[in-house]
């Protein structure tokens, strides 16, 4: 899987591309924005083709370490296959999920300014 940091700032945008499973999940630990408890991150999942429970657990782990769990990581552009994994595990309850990245960034920016 490829992790691309599209923008930095109050709300960082990270894109996942490929497959997020047990072999690629450890890569999330290496990304600074994902692992900064105070950094709000929008993760664009448009090009994420596949996720399994290891990948899901890694994303939940990112949310877990964010100080403001549910707002520290916002997810956007899930395809139906990825969305299904979040739904059947009930993990969608832990996240704000947006249909497009722009809306997620705007929401994240609002949250950031409220918290300052």
């Amino acid at each position, binding site marked *: 899987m490829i992790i691309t940091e599209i923008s930095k700032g109050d709300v960082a945008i990270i894109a996942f591309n490929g497959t997020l499973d*047990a*072999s690629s999940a450890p890569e999330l630990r290496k990304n600074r924005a994902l692992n900064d408890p105070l950094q709000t991150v929008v993760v664009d999942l448009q090009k994420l*083709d*596949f996720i399994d429970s290891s990948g899901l657990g890694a994303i939940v782990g990112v949310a877990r370490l964010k100080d403001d769990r549910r707002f520290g990581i916002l997810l956007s552009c899930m395809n139906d296959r990825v969305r299904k994994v979040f739904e059947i595990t009930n993990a969608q*309850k832990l996240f704000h999920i947006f249909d497009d990245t722009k809306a997620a960034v705007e929401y994240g920016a609002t949250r950031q300014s409220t918290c300052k």
Partner: protein
Amino acid sequence: MKRTMILTLPGEIIFTRVVSQTTCSVAALLTGKSLSASDGNEFTNAFELAISEAFTNSVLHSACQCEPQTITITFTIEPRQLTVSIHDLNPPFSIDTPDPDIENYPENGYGLLIIRKVMDKVTYNRENGSNIITMSKQL
């Protein structure tokens, strides 16, 4: 007609995609549909996910992490049903685990839940020192 295919491979995590994509190809034999990532075929997607989970579990719960074991996967292909069994030599386990408590942001424990949700039938047997988890789904 019932056909059987057996795949034997090292129990290493790097082989997970090999197993799941092979399973997709086998499932596509039943659906008769192509295998593009955006295909959205529920039957194929379900097997890709379930086998990824089961194979990962077999690798991660290996009794000996120093040397990869051999994992055997048996595909039983019927006109309207696919059954996949994964055999490993790990310690015995139960598939009747409780669902993870999502409110506590658990990072583990979703695998068997996903398998149960996407397959029609999941069984576990212990035979001659082997675990055999069998997953089946009708077209």
